[in-house]
């Protein structure tokens, strides 16, 4: 495909795009305002840092999901994949295959990335070469990764046994640089690279082309299968990155690690302005969507006026209201 950075044909097109991209951030600001009413401690540096830090897993996974969804696919297996990749990495570190805690962690990180890519490749090949609907293919893989994790852990927990390794790894989640915890850097660096790939490379353009119209993309000479497969590989890589910062937090995984994370990631992507039907991808919107999800939960917990039984209902309502705000902004333009 040729480069198409040229000026757009119509001006209204750009205005439309801009507002759609801005909408999630407007919703985020509205939530921040709402939060200050809920609790005095909401708008403190520490609380916001807590929230941003712990949204790192969903945010990073959702970056991968942005690619998959943008190309017209779907990956339901990511939550189970987190559990599977992290469990294997912990078992690897427990095996003591490499001497020295730092060398061990570095090797384990490499192992995680390789397993993540392999898992993503498996998902991709099953949907493209196997020609199975992504919903069913990744639903099946979700069961496989979850089942394997349960089997590895015998239903219990897999815990990092070596205290030295655990102590050396802990700062990756809990440590900070200039007062900002490392996971926050992970989010923004991953997002920056992803945004570059999606918006500034020919591969990124192919992803969007495949998602908006598969047939046109195919006639334009794009290898649709290869592009789709690559998006699943990127998803697997993102899951691995999330695992890099997941393990140091609790130093263990259980059979229930990462349950429902796939739905949270997809919600973050959609709240961020990416179309579920494909063809549009917004990396920064996705990050914003992940923050919105985490902040909604945080506000609910900090406020005193919501019954604990109603949390789910209020969370659902806020997400729908956030989407409606976005839509109305877009329509007004």
């Amino acid at each position, binding site marked *: 495909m040729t480069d198409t950075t040229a000026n757009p044909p119509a001006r209204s097109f750009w205005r439309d795009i801009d507002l759609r991209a801005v909408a999630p951030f407007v919703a985020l600001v509205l939530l921040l305002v709402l939060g200050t009413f809920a*609790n005095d401690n909401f708008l403190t540096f520490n609380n916001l840092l807590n929230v941003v830090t712990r949204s790192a897993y969903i945010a990073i996974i959702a970056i991968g999901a942005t690619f998959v969804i943008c190309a017209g696919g779907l990956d339901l297996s990511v939550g189970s994949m987190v559990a599977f990749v992290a469990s294997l990495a912990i078992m690897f570190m427990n095996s003591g295959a490499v001497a020295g805690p730092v060398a061990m962690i570095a090797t384990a990180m490499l192992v995680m990335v390789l397993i993540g890519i392999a898992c993503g490749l498996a998902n991709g090949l099953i949907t493209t070469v196997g020609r199975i609907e992504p919903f069913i293919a990744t639903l099946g893989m979700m069961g496989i990764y979850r089942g394997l994790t349960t089997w590895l852990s015998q239903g*219990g*927990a897999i815990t990092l046994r070596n205290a030295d390794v655990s102590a050396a790894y802990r700062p990756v989640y809990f440590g900070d640089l200039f007062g900002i915890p490392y996971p926050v850097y992970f989010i923004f660096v991953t997002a920056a690279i992803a945004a570059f790939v999606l918006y500034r490379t020919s591969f990124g353009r192919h992803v969007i082309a495949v998602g908006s119209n598969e047939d046109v993309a195919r006639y334009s000479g794009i290898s649709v299968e290869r592009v789709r497969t690559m998006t699943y590989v990127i998803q697997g890589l993102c899951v691995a990155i999330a695992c890099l910062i997941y393990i140091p*937090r*609790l130093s263990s995984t*259980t*059979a229930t690690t990462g*349950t429902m994370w796939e739905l949270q990631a997809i919600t973050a992507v959609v709240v961020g302005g990416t179309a579920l039907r494909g063809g549009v991808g917004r990396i920064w919107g996705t990050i914003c969507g992940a923050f919105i999800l985490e902040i909604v939960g945080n506000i609910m917990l900090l406020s005193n006026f919501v019954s604990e039984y109603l949390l789910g209902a209020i969370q659902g309502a806020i997400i729908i209201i956030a989407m409606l705000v976005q839509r109305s902004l877009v329509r007004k333009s």
Partner: protein
Amino acid sequence: MRKPILGLAAIALAATMGLAHAQDKKTIGVSIPAADHGWTAGVVYHAERIAKKLMEEHPGLNVVVKTSPDPASQANAVQDLETQGIDALVILPTDPDPLVNAIKEVKSKGKFVALVDRAPSTNDDSVRDLYIAGNNPALGEVAGKYIAKTTPDAEVVVIRGLPIPIDQQRQDGFDKGIAGSNVKVLDRQFGNWNRDDAFKVMQDYLTKYPKIDVVWCQDDDMAVGVLEAIQQAKRTDIQYVVAGAGSKDMVKKVMDGDKMIPVDVLYPPAMVGTAMELTAAQLIDQVPVHGTYILDATLVTKDNAKDFYFPDSPF
């Protein structure tokens, strides 16, 4: 006195000669949920441990353990066990009500049925001969009483499990335990019996309340997340955390005298073993065991922790 002694001797003789009497061979079928989280993993571990032990002790006894992930497959498993020819069934249902008919079917054939932990709506002798369960209200009450006794003026935050009846029973028990003391509950939120969710809830509690004395999170898995959140916030006002169930990690902390985990409240997955032992006693020794057994929610302290520590268990 002579008769019982003679009887015992006869039983002992019969037990040792079990192999010789092929027609006396007895089979116990054990149907339990598949290990899908910490507690059920413990159930599977203890069921297999006791099965092995019973077969070693009684050469004439065969114990078959089957795990099932959901009620439908467990109903099939029960049917399969029955077809294989069992003399007794020990069952911990994944979900009791959908399995009532399958259990009654076995019972109606005159087999001995021991039901563990999860009771159907009608839990009487038409369904089972023996019922053994942990004590959910007591799990809350023992924790509440301990907190009221150790720190009478404590301000406590509570992390609940999931909105289901046993969670409510534990909450009610806890309220009963702290009744009449100055212990004040600041907040109750759901942590879904999940480590990551408990971490988040605890982080938000720490933001919301400048002073927390005690955390009651009723579950050992959630305690893992709670402890990390406290450590990260570097808060020193929290005196201790009370969890529950009896996982090896938390019992180990109690045994080692960890100041943050001074006690643990027992809801032991090993109760499936109690049911198996009683069933074997009924089959082989013919002692009366019919009835309902509610195990105490024992308070695990530094002194008795070693009795409840299973380092090989996955839970």
